[in-house]
């Protein structure tokens, strides 16, 4: 979406250069301000190194969660060019389903057994959460998005917003208003302590799982036949279908993959933060969307790195700048603006053709 060179030469050169200069100046001003702030205030507080390390770890875990959700956003966006605004709610439903699976396992005493049993039980809980998310994801696609596939871009966005509200308040009505509290089994409660740095087991699991799932997803998309079909559909739906790709099936599978990731994120977040309720998908959803855009929406490694960067900035930013933590979202969004000023399609975003953007 950077203005193509041809048109820049053809007309309006003055406007373009002036604009670019204005933007760069704007960006540079903010950068200078940030550096000044970090050196004079942030570092002057003299936090120990262990503090920065634990903040960075916190940020990476946060980023891991964002990444799992952001991958779903980016997958759907890459293929349908629509923002699945209800994706955060899909994640929340995974968390709720995981909660009930956890209750069930606890009532059976599976989580007090020897560690292989516990691990299997935990995996089953996660699978159950993922299954619930997948179910909701494909239902959403079928009911709220498929009829709108040819509509102007804003229409599915509004439909998705409606679906998001609908899911939130349905969960509120069906399961009640009280938050559902996860009880961690002994195996994964607590964490590793290294000097002054503490790493919760759940945090480590989230980070590692999100990396593994991202790699698996990358493999599926780049190396398998299904992945090739997905890329083909993303490139040109009509042509792909002429080449024998079942477009509907590919889109459904995309939603399944994205929702499964979100479900996994929901369950893991449930274990990590111990509380799930009807609106607990909204804020992570929004952040994940930000992360996906930061990395260049539609791009899988981009979503991953965008999410990690966002998590890191949210955790470290306020301390580094010496401002209250309430401003972490302000920092996150300002970073987004800064990156988009210099790279209007995100960190890893390819220059899409104009029609798609």
């Amino acid at each position: 979406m950077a203005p193509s060179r041809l048109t820049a030469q053809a007309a309006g050169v003055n406007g373009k250069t002036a604009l670019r200069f204005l933007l760069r100046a704007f960006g540079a001003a903010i950068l200078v301000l940030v550096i000044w702030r970090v050196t004079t205030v942030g570092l002057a507080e003299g936090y120990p190194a262990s503090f920065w390390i634990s903040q960075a770890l916190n940020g990476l875990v946060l980023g891991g969660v964002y990444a799992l959700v952001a991958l779903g956003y980016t997958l759907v966006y890459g293929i349908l060019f629509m923002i699945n605004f209800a994706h955060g709610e899909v994640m929340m439903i995974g968390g709720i389903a995981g909660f009930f699976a956890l209750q069930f396992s606890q009532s059976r005493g599976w989580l007090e057994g020897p560690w292989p049993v516990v691990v299997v039980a935990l995996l089953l809980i996660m699978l159950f959460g993922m299954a619930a998310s997948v179910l909701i994801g494909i239902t959403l696609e079928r009911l709220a998005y498929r009829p709108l596939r040819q509509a102007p871009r804003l229409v599915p966005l509004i439909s998705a917003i409606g679906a998001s509200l609908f899911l939130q308040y349905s969960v509120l009505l069906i399961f009640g208003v009280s938050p559902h509290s996860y009880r961690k089994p002994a195996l994964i409660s607590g964490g590793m302590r290294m000097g002054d740095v503490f790493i919760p087991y759940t945090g480590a699991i989230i980070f590692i799982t999100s990396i593994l799932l991202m790699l698996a997803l990358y493999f599926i998309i780049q190396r398998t036949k299904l992945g090739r079909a997905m890329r083909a559909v993303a490139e040109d739906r009509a042509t792909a279908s002429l080449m024998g790709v079942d477009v509907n099936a590919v889109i459904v599978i995309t939603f399944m993959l994205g929702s499964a990731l979100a479900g996994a994120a929901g369950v893991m977040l449930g274990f990590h933060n111990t509380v799930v309720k009807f609106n607990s998908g909204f804020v992570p959803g929004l952040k994940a969307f930000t992360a996906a855009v930061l990395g260049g929406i539609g791009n899988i490694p981009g979503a991953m790195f965008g999410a990690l960067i966002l998590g890191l900035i949210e955790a470290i930013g306020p301390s580094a700048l010496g401002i209250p933590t309430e401003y972490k979202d302000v920092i996150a969004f300002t970073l987004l603006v800064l990156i988009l000023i210099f790279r209007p399609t995100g960190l890893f975003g390819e220059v899409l053709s104009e029609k798609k953007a």
Partner: protein
Amino acid sequence: MTPVSANGAIRNGLIAFAFLGYLILIGIPGRLGGSALPVLALVAALFFWVKLRFDAPDTGGAGLPGGSAEGKPGWQIGAPGQSSGRGVGALFPGRGGTLVLRHGLLAGVTTGLLIAGMSLAFASAIGSGASIQPVLDKIVPVNVGALIGVSPGQIANDDVPLFRYPLQVLFFTVAGLFAALAAVAARARNLQTTSMARLSAYLDSLPFRTTARFAGIALPFLLLAYIVWLGIPGVSAFGSNEGTVRLLFTLIATGSGLFAIRLAHPGREQKIVALLLALGVLTMPFILDQFQNSVMGLVFIFVMMGLGLNIVVGYAGLLDLGYVAFFAIGAYTYAFLSAPFSSPYISNLLNLLGISPEIPLLGYWTALPVAMLTAAIGGILLGIPVLRLRGDYLAIVTLGFGEIIRLFMLNLGELTNGPRGILEISQPGLFGLPPQSFSSGLLSSQGWIFLVALVSSAVVAFVAIRLNDSRLGRAWFAMQEDEDVAEATGVHLVRTKLLAFAIGATFAGMAGQLYASRQINIFPENFSLFVSIDALALIIVGGIGSPAGIVLGALALKGLPEVLRGVDEYRIVTFAALLVIMMIVRPAGILPSARRRVQVSPTDEQGPTTAAEERENDASLPAQGPPARPEDARSEEPA
């Protein structure tokens, strides 16, 4: 053919069960009380009927339902899907009647069995003292009892007569059969093919059209008269929720007025109708009661918001999800100028200038230009960094901007009083007098706000429409179509974009100022992301780019939830479901703009013209939606 049909029937039964199960889980039977079972059966029957009416031919033709690729050339070359409807329908009377009946029966039995099984499970669980309630919040004796048709006590004591369950099955079986019979009867009389044609021929005939036109024009006036009649003491509408009923009629009257203007012949007739309607609407603040006035005031504040956002999104094609920022700027600017709370910063500044910070600085009307100007500056400040961004990148950055403004309001406690908000903002006056004093009691304070909102939004609408027809409007439109080409043809992109942001922000600032004076007390939480979403949703529901559509959208999105107050906890779910259904049934909005109707789906990638686009094109039919496709019918129900 038969096995497919049986599968289809069971599938329909399952879908109906899923939908009814959802209603049961959210506690609808408990609300309905004794009539729960018949009502649920009726819902199932309606669903089956819709499915049979639009879906049954499909089971014979395309094999896997929904397998045809949305009119895209899929596996088979040629037009899939579309042919099957009429063809099979024509074959139908031959041997299809019993088939349909069997289909209905099977679907009904499936649903009935599942519902009965579900109620049996719930009843025995509650009866045996298992604690369902912490898991499923609404599965309480009252709800299950209503579903089975027994008293809550019987559920709790586990003495439900066993014949109740077969009775449930029977209810739904009968529902399925009735639906099938209705569908068969319709087919037998060949409604599907010829009478539709006859009907449409009749609809096209001149006398009918004339009558319909006059009826359409008269409708808002009749409704207005009815509203007035409802205001007479002692007259009641439908039971206790009278205020809400009257509000509903007010909303419909305003909405149908827009259609009436459209129905009138352009020229003098249209002008007269519009003038009369304007008069009628202007009397409303005097007629309505305080509640209705306050809701209508909010509706028209959001009309102003919508008109402003429409300039950014609808005219210039810049997707803005942070529009609430300017609304907030307008509101807070006015609050600073007119409320007793004054931040230390402002007080110091005022003291420096030699003005006492105790008294309000400016009145509503004198503060108006200030609020507009501040909002416009905010618009330009947002506009500069996002000049090069497009589409969804722009959306997320603007969203972030909205959040940043809200967070600043929340956290800059010394400037904005933080989450405790600014209290006692003064009301707009007229020549320095409060409204009650000059209207001799005719106009309540909320009515006055409504009147101001009405007049302001009329002014804003006028400006917006004139702008759209101006050189600038055409530049926006060109920019929306293709930025590079627009620039190549001499549109100054920077100026055009910034103007769009600034003008849009100005309108939002006006709306925000009025909102602040309506609320009297404002808090950062009033300016959350949901306000942006509401504003965006209302212009899309109404029909993007069309001022009349925006009024309709605001009526539907800000007015309707107030009417739905009677169903308090189901309010948001209902609203959300309506939003989704609305988008599916009428993606172009209720009243799409003329320009939108002409152009073919501008932002979409180059696909073949499909059903959705065609629907968009002939969306000029104002009242009823175009014939639903099978997918629509299916998606509408369980949503």
